[in-house]
């Protein structure tokens, strides 16, 4: 079942550029893949550890800014940017994680939120180093200058495949992690932290790993985004980005593998689908959010799974 689903998914994602020609749709698809990875990475913390991390935009932003700053200060734009984005983001996550992961519930949520706010202020006041309020324009296109190069990522299709590669990496990493001993420790921590600690699970250690994995993935998305769009601005740290990432996970279904993917795609497509409503667009968006939360508290994946089980139960009765 999972194997077939993976094959179908791979086939669809790899052949999309063959039948989607419009640049606009390619842009939506690339952003959809980025958002899906962000949701997958946050889901580790939100869905499996069960802690409200409100600072995910921070790691996305750090990744984007690291890649952009290396590009504009050193003129580099290669694998080094991605590597640096990954390393810097993970390091920042470790620094904030050491005090923050000892806290729980609303306190953890607030510290992570505060972290984003401080970052935004630092970036706004960073002068030419960070570009200040106007951000850093002219981030170079991603390029490979090593063996067989130079190969420049310049078209949407190339970025699409880069985003899709990252998407599958993130998906497989999260599946592998969740199905390992570590994943079981995460679930134990989510269900009952005190009990988990009492049977010898080092909660801090396992939380830290989930936090670092999520941050690293988000950092990579940020770096790819910076190279794709060619521009970063402090708006990346806006509360709205945070809300959007959290909403993607919840709308799709927290604590499931496919949920964040569904949520990421829906939340990318929805604003575009609602374009017809013009001034009422955000209103409909908010109402949609509220409706999903009220009527599908387990997310859209939970809703579908419920309907599926009911259908199965009914067909069993008939037999």
């Amino acid at each position, binding site marked *: 079942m999972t194997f077939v689903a993976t094959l179908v998914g791979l086939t669809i994602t790899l052949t999309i550029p063959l039948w989607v020609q419009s640049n606009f749709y390619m842009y939506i698809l690339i952003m959809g893949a980025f958002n899906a990875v962000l949701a997958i990475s946050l889901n580790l913390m939100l869905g499996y550890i069960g802690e409200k991390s409100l600072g995910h935009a921070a790691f996305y932003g750090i990744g984007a800014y690291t890649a952009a700053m290396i590009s504009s200060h050193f003129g580099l734009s290669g694998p080094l940017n991605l590597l640096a984005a990954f390393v810097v983001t993970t390091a920042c996550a470790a620094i904030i994680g050491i*005090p923050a992961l000892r806290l729980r519930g609303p306190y953890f949520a607030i510290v992570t*939120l*505060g972290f984003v706010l*401080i970052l935004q202020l630092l970036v706004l006041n960073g002068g030419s180093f960070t570009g200040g309020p106007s951000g850093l324009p002219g981030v170079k296109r991603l390029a490979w200058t090593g063996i067989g190069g130079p190969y420049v990522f310049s078209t949407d299709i190339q970025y699409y495949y880069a985003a899709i590669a990252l998407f599958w990496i993130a998906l497989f990493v999260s599946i592998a992690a969740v199905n390992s001993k570590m994943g079981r420790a995460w679930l134990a921590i989510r269900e009952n932290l005190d009990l988990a600690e009492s049977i010898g699970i080092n909660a801090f250690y396992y939380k830290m790993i989930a936090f670092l994995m999520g941050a690293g993935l988000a950092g990579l998305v940020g770096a790819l985004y910076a190279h794709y769009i060619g521009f970063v601005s402090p708006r990346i740290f806006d509360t709205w980005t945070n809300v959007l990432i*959290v909403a993607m996970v919840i709308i799709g279904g927290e604590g499931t593998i496919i949920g964040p993917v569904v949520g990421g795609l829906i939340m990318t497509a929805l604003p575009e689908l609602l374009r017809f409503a013009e001034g009422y667009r955000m209103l409909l968006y*908010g109402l949609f*959010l509220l409706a999903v*939360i009220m009527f599908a508290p387990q997310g859209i994946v939970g809703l579908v799974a419920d309907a599926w089980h009911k259908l199965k139960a009914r067909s069993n009765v008939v037999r």
Partner: protein
Amino acid sequence: MGYVLMALGLTLVFGIGRVINFAHGELYTLGAFIAVVLVQASFPYLSTLLIAPLLAGIMGMLIERLIIRKMRGAGTSIWAPFLATLALLVIFQSLYLIIFGPDPHILQNSFGYTSIDLFSLTVMGQDALIAGVSIIVVAALIWFMHHTSYGAAMRAVSQDRDTALLMGVDVNAIYALTWYLGVALAALAGVLVTPEATVDPYIGRIVLLKGITIVIVGGLGSVEGAVLGGLMLGLIESLAGTYVSPSFKDGWGYALVILVLVFRPRGLLGQQLRRG
């Protein structure tokens, strides 16, 4: 003192309802917009100080009754009320945008612009009004929480909801009352502070951030903590803004938050929350 009022409603709703109300800033804005409309309809400004919070409080009760209460049952995600208030934030903000447009509105208050001499200090009328009303409201709230049966019931629900229910407290009514008070306080802050600034659909964001900062520093759910936190934030911002770096003014609040959370996660005056 304006900061104190911004935080009071937030801390009430969290302390008793256990919901971080992310729409808090939007309800502050609601109060301000109600006042703007009333003043345009030639009500005196001082009367809006009373009318706007009373009306906005009804909105708070509706939110509790129609949305938050439905999520208190078993089987719903702990995330549900949190996300619901986020959705409300978006809904309110877009409604304001549709009704009032993106431009800032001014709330006229002729009294606010006169200066008053007070013990050799010259104070703007509006500042004096904010301080005076805040002191009265805080005193009344503390008295209410400690000397009335409703206040006692609110504190009981905050400490242990199930036991309170067993003791015959109408928990649903207390939640409704809490939301009424919390939102009315947010709206009151909006009416009081807006004459010193302007109101547009986006001001809620900064109010929410300040409110959360204060509530964390003072202790989640503590009225006294909100007062202390509000005063501290006001002092730190103006001192650091003057002597260190004006552009980083807002950052000191967050730095304070992180310090408090690392060394005293329950806040300066917060009670120890039960684990789990």
